[in-house]
């Protein structure tokens, strides 16, 4: 136990826009190779990536790390030609995993704490979309205890229970004006939690070719204790009563399929695909518990997300000395349909390149670094709000991680 606590951990980074709110990324090593690793277990991040592969880890280890998400972007209005900036505060998600099994045991047990979904977006003062979203902050943390079982020398299975806690804050302007010209404001603050399952299969077909399948179930994030706070002119206060709210935020189910090929001891090539089913993320209803607001008992966010998918490819080179180098890319098809893009998550289809490197100080201690870039351009004319223009975001995610083998 003492050794465990003194270990240093690698963590999964967080991307702001990957598939809506989804941060479908794993450890620093995986980021460097196009966020692959489903069929390529290398450390305790397998708890998240594929519980089925954890039993095949050659050693027990602990990982921690930190990533920095640097994000900024613009919205260019197609009608007014004006450009509004979004300068988002630095987000530093952290993520920690441990995988442990007795020597010669077919079982391995793991625990991972990671950030599956998240988004922050802060638009400049006076941005044209502020009646939809002025600022949003969504954070979530999942704790996932996991067990993995090696059925035989080729096949592994694993399952983990995901408990997720989330916190959403939304700020927007209301189209009612004070006598001094100021617009009213609304703040919605919801804390939520949900349960789900993360399961996986791993199959080592030959010594240098393996396949994997993973499934993360839908999680209905229930928020029973939220608040809505309105700041409106006194004569309208009765129409905008601040009060408790409740909501359900359905997080998607995710299917993953991957293959890993090692042509020789130096090289690894990974290919995988993920399908994210956001179909339940259609209309998010924020229900007012006490009294109607502007005549309605709920505020409906019409999102109509559908399926999204990601195709990923990564390559890794392990030198005979202490260096490892990797590179990769992934293509993401956004779940947000034409006509439904909002200033809260202006997601788009895109290609993300990444590079990474590791240095092994010893057989036990390794440091990883990676850099992921996201270039998002989305032109849309929202059919509900009428917001018409182009969102452009550049996101930079440097990540650093440490692995200590127990």
């Amino acid at each position, binding site marked *: 136990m003492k050794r465990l606590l003194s270990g240093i951990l690698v963590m999964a980074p967080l991307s702001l826009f990957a598939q809506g709110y989804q941060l479908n990324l794993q450890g620093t090593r995986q980021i460097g190779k196009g966020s692959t690793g489903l069929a390529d277990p290398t450390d305790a991040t397998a708890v998240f990536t594929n519980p089925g592969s954890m039993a095949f880890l050659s050693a027990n280890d602990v990982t921690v790390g930190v990533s920095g998400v640097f994000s900024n972007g613009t919205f260019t209005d197609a*009608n007014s030609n004006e*450009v509004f900036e979004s300068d988002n505060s630095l987000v530093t998600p952290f993520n920690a995993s441990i995988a442990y099994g007795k020597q010669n045991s077919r079982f391995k047990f793991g625990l991972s704490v990671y950030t599956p979904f998240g988004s922050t977006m802060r638009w400049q003062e006076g941005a044209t979309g502020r009646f939809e979203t002025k600022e949003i902050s969504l954070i979530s943390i999942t704790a996932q205890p996991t067990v993995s079982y090696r059925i035989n020398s080729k096949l592994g299975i694993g399952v983990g229970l995901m408990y997720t806690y989330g916190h959403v804050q939304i700020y927007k302007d209301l189209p009612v*004006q004070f006598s001094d010209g100021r617009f009213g404001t609304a703040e919605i603050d919801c804390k939520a939690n949900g349960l789900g399952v993360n399961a996986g299969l791993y199959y080592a077909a030959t010594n240098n070719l393996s396949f994997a399948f993973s499934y993360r179930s839908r999680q209905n994030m229930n928020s029973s204790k939220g608040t809505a706070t309105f700041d*409106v002119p006194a*004569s309208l206060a009765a129409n905008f009563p601040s009060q408790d709210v409740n909501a359900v935020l359905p997080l998607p189910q995710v299917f993953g399929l991957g293959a890993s090929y090692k042509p020789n001891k130096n090289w690894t090539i990974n290919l995988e695909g993920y399908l994210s089913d956001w179909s339940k993320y259609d209309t998010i209803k924020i229900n007012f518990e006490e009294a109607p607001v502007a005549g309605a008992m709920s505020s409906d966010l019409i999102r109509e997300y559908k399926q999204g998918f990601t195709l990923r490819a990564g390559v890794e080179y392990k030198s005979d000395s202490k260096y490892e180098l990797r590179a990769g890319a992934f293509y993401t098809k956004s779940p947000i349909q034409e006509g439904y893009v909002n200033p809260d998550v202006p997601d788009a289809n895109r290609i993300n390149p990444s590079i990474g490197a590791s240095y092994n100080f010893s057989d036990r201690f390794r440091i990883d670094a990676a*850099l992921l870039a996201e270039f998002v351009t989305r032109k849309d004319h929202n059919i509900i709000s*009428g*917001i018409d223009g182009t969102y452009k975001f550049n996101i930079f995610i440097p990540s650093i991680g440490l692995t200590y083998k127990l």
Partner: protein
Amino acid sequence: MKRSNIVYSFAALAALSLTACKKDAQFSVSKGEADFSKYVAIGNSLTAGYADNALYYEAQVVSYPALMAKQFAQVGGGEFKQPLVPENSVGIGSAGNARLALAVVNGALTPRPVAASGDLSIFTSSVAAQGPFNNMGVPGAKVTTAVYPGYGNPANGAGNFNPFFTRMTTAPASASMLTDAVTQQPTFFSVFLGSNDVLGYAISGGAGDVITPMEGPAGIGFAASYETLIGALTANGAKGAVANIADVTTAPYFTTIAHNSLVLTSQVLVDALNSAYAPLIQAGLCETFKLGANGFIIEDEDSPVGMRQIRSGELVLLSTPQDSLKSAGWGSAKPLANQYVLTAKELNNIRQATNAFNQKIKEIAAAKNLAFVDVASFLAKAKEHGIEANGRKITTTFVTGGAFSLDGIHLTPIGSALLANEFIKSINKTYNAAIPQVDVTRYGGVKFP
């Protein structure tokens, strides 16, 4: 690969990201085939920036032509001068009144003048020395009066000159709105006139004023006056935009009080009305009164007894004193006076004139290759479906709809911004220009206490 190579790769990725950052999504602005260096707007109160039943500073600075001029500035547009009233003035309306603001009266939000009287100094102190003015919008102006020399001449006597024009022209005795506009040699103009040619009749319930006839010489007839205006403005090759006029029922002034707002809650009253109006009911001029919603009793000179019950589709005007409806038996014990009602016959007159005027405006626009702004369709759309303004739905509903100010006829700042965009869209299309539209979210609707 060496460590330096790794550093190089990271740097390359960073450089790639910065390059991507610089690409922007803006379109290239263009004036197209038009020249906006000298823009002059001719119109009535809507053009002047009259709102909340008065001409006042805050509304003037967001008049739709002033907002258009700001956008024109991006494609070579010049200065846009307006005959502004003092910044902190309560303003002045056509009845000498102050502007309206919402106030809570007996627990209900009610439009109230902000002062007992309007700021009469606006009429007595000329601002002509600050001119000439690009905004030639004059509250009350008609197509016919826009070409009328001496329109600002006090010597004509009260009611025969327009003090809103007097204060802004250097030659009240001789100038017309048109001559003051043409003297500036505009390279681009807009004309939004015609509303008062029917509205004067409409807002008085058909009781005062008359609808401008189509025929007749300039200064009398609509067609000749409009042709004179456009002929003079285009004489030097200037380009421009003209707007048609909307159906009266798009303005909340005509639609806020439903025809059947006579709500009866006591059977005693129902019986009393049925007894009092028994002859009307027998003559088929009134339905039997019942508990709940009933149509008002109105004056009508075409009725044998001079009164009848209002019919569905007929309009009760916002000028109707609400307390008289509630407590003085107006519309029930006592018929609503003609000046507060538009009957089907009067509405028919208004619609026929509106259609004829709009037909003429469209013809002239086509003949002169001018941008044609279909305000009628735009306001009809706002009334039927609302306008989605980047997350704000703007409708023509009184107070809450956002488009119309507290007088129910003139626009709010966001209403002006939306109208400016209708002009810009049409100008872009006609003259192959790319003028950015106004960001409407910067502008408000009705303000609340």
